[in-house]
């Protein structure tokens, strides 16, 4: 791995992503946890830029950092959970062992060719653009049915969330 802009960006975004992830699962104060979550999601958006998917990076920042992280912050404040829960973890040791074992298995799987196939060193030079994605989303041979189903899902989720969280006494 030679030293260039992409390699440096990869290292920086790895620090963002994994550091934020560690912050999310270890912090005692959940409000700080949402800040760590934003850091981690920002690192993932950086990966999308490195992988030449700038549209996904923009959507990642708008939807995840702009909407989901703010929603989680609201939930943390509404439930005021910081003061009531004394311990952070249950089943700490079994969870730690299980996730470590999972990580080692996954790492073995992606570094060693035990499942066959070769891991490519270089990506193809040309790549589909955001314009191609937009055309494919409304193409009848592309993704128009999942695209419409996603709209229905979002409407259903919105109505359902309002209905579930509504205060019946008010």
């Amino acid at each position: 791995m030679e030293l260039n802009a992409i390699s440096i960006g990869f290292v920086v975004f790895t620090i963002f992503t994994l550091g934020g992830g560690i912050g999310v699962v270890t912090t005692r104060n959940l409000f700080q946890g949402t800040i760590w979550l934003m850091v981690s999601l920002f690192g993932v958006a950086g990966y999308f830029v490195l992988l030449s998917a700038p549209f996904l990076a923009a959507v990642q920042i708008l939807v995840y950092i702009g909407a989901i992280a703010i929603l989680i912050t609201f939930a943390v404040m509404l439930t005021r959970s910081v003061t009531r829960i004394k311990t952070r973890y249950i089943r700490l040791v079994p969870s730690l062992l299980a996730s470590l074992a999972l990580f080692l298995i996954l790492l073995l799987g992606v570094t060693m060719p035990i499942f066959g196939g070769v891991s490519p060193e270089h990506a193809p030079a040309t790549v589909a653009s955001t314009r191609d994605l937009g055309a494919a989303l409304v193409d009848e041979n592309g993704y128009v049915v999942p695209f419409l189903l996603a709209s229905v899902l979002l409407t259903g989720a919105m109505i359902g969330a309002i209905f579930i969280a509504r205060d019946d006494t008010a």
Partner: protein
Amino acid sequence: MVPLWMYLAVAAALFSLGVFGALSRRNAVAVLMSVELMLNAVNINLVAFWRYSETSTDLLLNGYAFTAFVLIVAAAEAAVGLAIIITVYRNRRSVIPEEAAALKG
């Protein structure tokens, strides 16, 4: 250029962090945040495989489009999940998943 396996290794680490958080945290909001970490690890994998496959040159956008749909489903999941957590908190004054056991046989 960064080889493909490095993206996969980072995604594996992020997914394992999410698994650890989802299994061990006591707070339901923290569990939901860990689930978001796992979804993001999956998204890194999808985009990396799409970018490094030869078919990404000729307008096959399966990985790209699938990542967009995962983002949509994650947004819906977060909204409904947080609504459920807030309702449980209102009824039981608790955000510990084990204490929401009214349906336990």
